[in-house]
């Protein structure tokens, strides 16, 4: 059985301008100890998906339907008390911006201990010991002294380490990382990714990694969900996705990856910008930006169907399989040729 099974999850926000369908029917599952990558542009609904699972959207003006089954219990229908028990204990979360995610008026030791004390019936001293242990595990130098420092005394990368320590302090089964490296500089990004990867092995947690960076996905994910405009465009095990990408949007993402080994005038981009979720385009949501657009794309929404006979690889596109395979091959051949 999967650790977490999300079925047809929908999150709508009521706003003054109308209903924003931030997540519109997303289905995926996370296996024990595995890493699921969710990739997509800004505003594609990746973060909202996770905040919904964590129950962190404000209740007011939010409509949530679907299921998120956590070890047999539906997170979306759970009492807030039970959800609090799980949150920070079984399911923990790391946020995008470490600069603002820590409370400026408490020491990091206190904020870490708080997480322990909320879920374990232990003394403050033991909680502090556990906090220190985690700070060492995430590689904070001189952790014994720094545990009594305040967040503003840490750099961005160090704060993200503190956030990771805080998330792992109760040994969660699932770690949700919402673009954990976006706000960091490139060298720090690699360190943080390696750290998450290493800690995942040590702690045996499953990870949901939200990112807009396919490079990150290639590096640490086992399975991938590609989201576009609140829906799933393609989902597959990571190898399949990179070997046989089957959605024009995925091709676009792959094609726009910058490469160090080739000189280019200008980075390749997907033309246009993501649609408004207030009033998404009819039919396939990607059709206004899709170079392969056909008549049917403008009227009918493509269902999520297996690619060939591979049941683990799903995509929502009207193109026929032969064309897809040919295009994917062309794209990959191009990428290979460039790198030679």
């Amino acid at each position, binding site marked *: 059985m999967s650790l977490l099974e999300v079925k047809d999850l929908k999150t709508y926000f009521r706003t003054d301008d109308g209903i924003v369908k931030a997540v519109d029917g997303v289905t995926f599952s996370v296996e024990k100890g595995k890493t699921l990558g969710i990739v997509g542009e800004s505003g594609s609904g990746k973060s909202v998906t996770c905040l919904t699972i964590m129950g962190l959207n404000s209740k007011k003006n939010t409509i949530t339907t679907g299921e998120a089954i956590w070890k047999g219990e539906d997170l979306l229908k759970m009492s807030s008390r039970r959800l609090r*028990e799980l949150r920070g204990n079984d399911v923990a979360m790391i946020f995008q911006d470490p600069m603002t*995610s820590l409370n400026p008026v408490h020491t990091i030791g206190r904020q870490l201990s708080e997480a322990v004390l909320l879920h374990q019936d232990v003394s403050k001293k033991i909680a502090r010991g556990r906090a220190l242990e985690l700070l060492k595990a995430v590689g904070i130098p001189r952790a014994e002294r720094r545990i009594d420092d305040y967040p*503003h005394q840490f750099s961005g990368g160090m704060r993200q380490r503190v956030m990771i320590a805080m998330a792992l302090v109760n040994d969660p089964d699932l770690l949700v990382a919402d673009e954990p490296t976006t706000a960091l500089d490139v060298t720090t990004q690699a360190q943080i990714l390696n750290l998450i990867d290493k800690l995942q092995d040590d702690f045996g947690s499953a990870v949901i990694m939200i990112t807009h960076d396919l490079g990150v996905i290639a590096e640490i994910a086992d399975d991938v969900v590609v989201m576009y405009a609140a829906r799933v465009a393609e989902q597959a095990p990571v190898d399949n996705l990179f070997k046989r990408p089957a959605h024009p949007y995925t091709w676009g993402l792959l094609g726009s990856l910058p490469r160090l080994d080739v000189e280019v005038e200008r980075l390749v981009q997907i033309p246009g910008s993501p649609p408004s979720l207030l009033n998404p385009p009819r039919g396939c949501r990607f059709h206004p930006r899709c170079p392969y657009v056909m008549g049917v794309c403008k009227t009918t929404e493509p269902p999520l169907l297996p690619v060939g006979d591979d049941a683990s690889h799903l995509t929502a596109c009207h193109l026929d399989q032969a064309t897809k395979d040919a295009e994917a091959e062309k794209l990959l051949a191009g990428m290979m040729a460039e790198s030679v």
Partner: protein
Amino acid sequence: MWACVLFIAVTLVTYVIFFIIPADPAKLVAGKNARPEDIKRAAHYIGVDKPVYQQYWIFMKRLVIHHNLGRSFSNRQNVNDIVLAAAPVTATLVFGGAIFWMLLAIPIGILSALRPRSLLDRLAMVFVLIGISAHPVWIGLIFSYFFGYRLGLTPIQGYCDVFNPPPGASCGGPVDWAYHMILPWMTFMILFAALYVRMIRANVLETLGEDYVRTARAKGAPESQVMKSHVLRNAMLPIVTMLGMDIGLALGGAVFTESIYNLHGLGQTAVLGLQTFDLPTTLGVVVFATLSIILFNLFVDLLYAVIDPRIRLA
């Protein structure tokens, strides 16, 4: 250093303004039917025959070296005594008022931030608008008319000493003291609570949207703990600054409230001093007010270092 400059600037301006006013304090001192030489003698006696800068110099020297504010022009009382007699009245009004307005503003502010657009929030906003628009004199008069005169629940005006009432005083002791201060406190409460409700509401709302509040929730903290240890502490930081400044400012004289309830505090003393062209008394209040503002700002700065770790290192 900055405080000294401020202090000199304020007293100097007061001095200069006083001498621009076309009135001769010596004439008032000498009396109605005084002959010119009497006025001259009076001027010399109270020291206004010297040039302004010399007078100011004498005033500063006396203040800095002897800690003495001089004697009143009109009744020759020592100004130190006048200010010291008036200060407790104003202090009672301001600090008591501050306690009441915070007691009222904190819960209302927080509750309306937690339920924006709820009935309570809207009622609070109505109250805020009334409190901000209403003049203290009007509120004071309404209060003393209804509670003091019509209902007879409270005294209409006056002040009682807490400790050692002077012989012959009609009342005294803590009970009478508090009883007489109820209406002035309430007036102060309405005025300031309105401002504070709005500030607290805005700050709490803003803090509720902070990332670290979401982090706290993601940790599994119950709402009460999120509020207590993450939201309030941060939301109250600017309120502390505001409170310190307001108290310092109000100590300089809550003129209107004091006048309505006939409290012989600093505000009334200053107004009386101005009406009788009594420079030393007016200056005495100004000096006291300036000092209290400076001291309270200093106090707030120090307090800030304690409650906000980001300031500590700077």
